[in-house]
């Protein structure tokens, strides 16, 4: 529940004025609707009485008929404004929410980032954010507007048509509608969340089945997987069938409530008439107003039936938008670029030095490099005199660049991929490609504006890696950390690559984890990591 409130605060907070204007207009629309029907009913009955009594000439027809026209047109205009304002406000709020989520995801640690499975996260995020728009647009705003409208109408009816009529309407509408909607939200809570989760499982299962197609065929499990997915679909549809039944019953009850309230208002009016406390024209006002008020409760059914899905989404999205705060501190200039003091390893690295880090697979080289880059907890590591997590993210990234073991490219041109490192001139792009021993390949393929497919499709594994390396080099960091930059290259190219990296960044401290080629002349020292085992 606290997550739901937090989301509400954020959604409303993103555009409070647009939200408030939209809510105010919602009330205007509903009140004008009730006034229109009430006035029309009173007008016709009153003219009927005047006509029968033969006093038609004396009856003031112009003010009521002008009122009818004003209410009819005004209500239409208010409705248009209300729809535009509330949708605009909610779109602003949802954009803000998406950005907050993306920002939060970018702050996860290395393990969590590696486990990010694109589709699963994306579709979850999209459908959650989609679900959340219903929270304000279909639950909060209309409920608040309905309550306000009923209060206004009650006050006016007490004054115009008498307390019994006002009580009959408020007493029949409000408690019954609240009860039905509460029960609806309660009964759909579980199934609605379950249906949504099931749909997401189905989506992930389908993606996996198609991607894993060859392996499934080879192991003869295709039909098994298909049956699993069919079973999942059947389960999801069973939930939605149950949801539909509950929701339809609630809809029928709400429509019966509206009929009951109209009947109650009619009987109350008739009773007051029989008591001689009002004239027939006043006695019908309640009935007509009650008929108009049906539109305050009927549209609520959809939103309340969705509350389960919405609160599930809020539960998942809520923690994803908590703010990260990192305190910026002034740089320390005299400390070594990198100092590591750990039981298994102790080293310092000054500007212009290059160090090769060797050791068997599994000794923890990649983990160490991720820690240096601030993606994993970094005990005993200081960069420029302080631990990685004491830096602000922005200034840390300008000083330290890491080429991880597995790099990802984005769909788009070579240039767009390089631009992730920041804005640079074409000459600088080519210089970095040159240093990454990739300029020839890119030139032959059509230059910087050559398009790559999703995930860098179109380059070989080694080429994609060197493009990622060029991207790192562009940042001209104080500390360049490379994880196996020569993997997959022949010895001559590997040696040339190490040399050209050094020439490109003569003043940087360079730390390279690698299996072979540690005897290359660029390295001032070799350090061996044997692991703690």
């Amino acid at each position, binding site marked *: 529940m606290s997550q739901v409130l937090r989301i509400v605060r954020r959604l409303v907070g993103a555009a409070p004025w647009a939200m408030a204007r939209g809510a105010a207009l919602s009330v205007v629309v509903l009140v004008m609707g009730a006034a229109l029907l009430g006035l*029309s009913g009173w007008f016709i*009955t009153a003219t*009927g*009485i005047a006509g*029968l009594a033969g006093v038609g000439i004396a009856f003031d027809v112009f003010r009521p*008929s002008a009122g009818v026209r004003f209410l*009819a*047109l005004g*209500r239409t205009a208010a409705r248009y404004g209300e729809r535009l304002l509330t949708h605009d406000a909610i779109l602003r709020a949802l954009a803000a929410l998406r*950005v907050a989520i993306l920002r939060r995801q*970018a702050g996860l640690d290395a*393990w969590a*980032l590696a*486990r*990010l499975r*694109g589709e699963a996260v994306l*579709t979850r995020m999209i459908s959650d954010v989609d679900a959340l728009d219903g929270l304000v647009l279909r639950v909060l705003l209309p409920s608040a507007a309905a309550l306000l409208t009923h209060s206004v109408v009650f006050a006016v009816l007490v004054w115009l048509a008498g307390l019994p009529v006002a009580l009959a309407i408020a007493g029949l509408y409000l408690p019954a509608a609240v009860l039905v909607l509460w029960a609806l939200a309660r009964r759909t809570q579980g199934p609605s969340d379950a249906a949504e989760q099931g749909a997401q499982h189905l989506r*992930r299962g389908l*993606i*996996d089945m*198609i*991607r*894993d*197609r*060859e392996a*499934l*065929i080879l*192991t*003869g*499990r*295709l*039909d098994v997987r298909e049956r699993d997915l*069919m079973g999942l*679909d059947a389960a999801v*549809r069973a939930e939605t*069938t149950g949801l539909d039944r509950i929701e*339809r019953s609630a*809809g*029928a009850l709400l*429509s*019966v409530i509206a*009929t009951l309230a*109209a*009947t109650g208002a*009619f009987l109350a009016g*008739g009773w007051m*008439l*029989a008591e001689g406390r009002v004239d*027939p024209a006043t006695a*019908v006002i309640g009935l007509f107003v009650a008929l108009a008020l049906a539109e305050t409760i009927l549209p609520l059914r959809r939103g309340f039936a969705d509350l389960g899905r919405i609160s599930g989404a809020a539960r998942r999205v809520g923690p994803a938008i908590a703010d990260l705060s990192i305190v910026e501190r002034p740089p320390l200039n005299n400390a070594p670029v990198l100092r590591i003091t750990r039981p298994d390893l102790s080293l310092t690295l000054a500007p212009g030095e290059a160090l090769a880090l060797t050791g068997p*697979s599994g000794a923890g080289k990649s983990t160490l490099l991720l820690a240096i880059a601030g993606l994993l907890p970094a005990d005993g590591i200081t960069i420029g005199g302080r631990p990685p997590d004491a830096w602000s993210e922005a200034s840390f990234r*300008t000083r330290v660049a890491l080429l*991880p073991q*597995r790099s990802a490219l984005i769909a788009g041109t070579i240039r767009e991929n390089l631009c*992730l490192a920041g804005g640079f001139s074409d000459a600088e792009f080519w210089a970095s490609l040159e240093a990454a021993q990739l300029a020839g390949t890119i030139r032959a393929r059509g230059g910087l504006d050559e398009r790559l497919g999703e*995930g860098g499709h179109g380059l070989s*594994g080694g080429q994609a890696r060197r493009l990622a390396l060029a*991207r790192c080099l562009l940042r001209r960091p104080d500390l360049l950390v490379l994880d*196996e930059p020569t993997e*997959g290259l022949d010895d001559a190219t590997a040696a040339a690559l190490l040399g050209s990296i050094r020439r490109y960044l003569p003043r940087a401290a360079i730390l390279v984890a690698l299996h072979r080629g540690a005897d290359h002349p660029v390295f001032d020292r070799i350090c061996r990591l044997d692991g703690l085992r």
Partner: protein
Amino acid sequence: MSSQRQRARQRIILPVSGDLKAAGRLAVLAGLLWPVQAAAIAWAVSGWVEGEVEPAHTLGAALAFLLAGLVRAILDHRAGALLFRAADATIARERAAMIRREARATAGIGSAAVASLVVQKLPLLQPWITRYHVAMMRVSVLPLVLLALSFSLSWVVGLTLLVAGPLIPVFMALVGMAAEEASRRQMDEIGSMNDMLMDRLSALTDIRLLGASERATVDFAVRAEALRVRTMAVLRIAFLSSTVLELFSAIGVALVAVFVGFTLLGEIGFGSWGSPLTLGEGLFLLLIAPEFFQPLRDLSAAWHDRAAGYAVVADLDALDAAERASMVGSGEEAEPLAGAFSLRTEAAVAALPGREVTLPDIVLGPGDALAIIGPSGAGKTTVLAAIAGLVPLAAGRISVCGSALGSGTADGWRRRIAFVPQRVHFADMPLGDWLDPRGTGADPWAALRLADAEGIVDRLPEGLATRLGETGGGVSGGEARRLMLARAVMEGGDLILADEPTADLDTETATRIIAALDRVRGEGRAILVATHDPALAAVMDRQVAMSA
């Protein structure tokens, strides 16, 4: 265009038209109850004015009003059940067809696109099915009935409705067309924004390391803002169409109210047939006027649902028409093919979508090791795929264990081979389950040891329970290959097909893979590798060259 819509209706609507018609009849019946309720009120109030204020009079009318209201709610409830059933059956049918087809004969449009069609877009058919046809049936009956009732009491009221009513579809068509085009553009925009977001998410580690998180986020925010502006442009039009409808109905109802009022006062002396309009008739007219417009407004709302439905069917049609890569056999569990192990290809030609690849003639017996060598693009991967029955043949034949590889033998043949693809893909499941695809429950450590992958699993934070990233996030390229080899060993069988097992690896890592393959061969299994790595080719018994 119209023939496409015709087909869309045949595909989606025709199979459920029985339910839709029944629901439509119930909805029309429910709509016809409103004049009954209106008449009860009008009768009671006109009695009040004439002095009949005793409770029995009022109570009788109230009871009639209440009963009709209850019946109306029940009819609507029942109609809703029929409509839901129709929509559910349609979605279930289309979904099942796609689940059964998309992996067997893949269309190459991307798994995410198929999943989004199945999970997200198919439910968009529901509003079309549940709303449009019922709205259509109500429109074709209710306004006519209410119009006839109005005419029978006052030709002026009838005429007012007659003029205001038909204008609604005209405006609806004009505004609706613009809205349809705009909403299609918006759907495309959302799709490409989702693609962009997915791409950024999978490159998030790199984005973060490049210090580009903030830039990527801002870039995304700018695009989201642009999307909001475009969406609002669409909504302005879409809301305008419903506002125009509301405006017409509001003006129509206001005109009726004012006309009836003036007539009752005696200030207007025309418009009714002979005798002047009574109060009861006037109230009745006022009450039914809004309901004359309601079906028209419902239909216009459903108009957008129909457009969305057509868009989904167009996607379904496009997927049906897509060129598909098929396979041999069914991909289902089968008994291992009987007979001594042997493999022979004779003048076989593999049929890829839009391309044919001629296979070299290969003969392979138990324990043989063969390398297919050749430059990239020569079709080495296709040769392995054809031998595994993943690609059908256009000509020639492949004999396996003495019989021809065909739909009857492919599944059994696949039980006797294991395949190590070049592309790294880990399914979203714990590593232990992934290593044991046939679910034998056997101990994976022997296979891991054989493939030199024991240490890799030891080092993972949760060991065999680890879920690796889709492309092996968490392990290096060489480690992923060794895990894949361990999986092939776990599967058992007489032949391991390995596609470029040392591609993109440095010499040391490649040497470990080659050594592992050699150990596997030492266990008596035949090996067929496709490679351009001379070191790997050298340890095989024979080499077959392919040219580009």
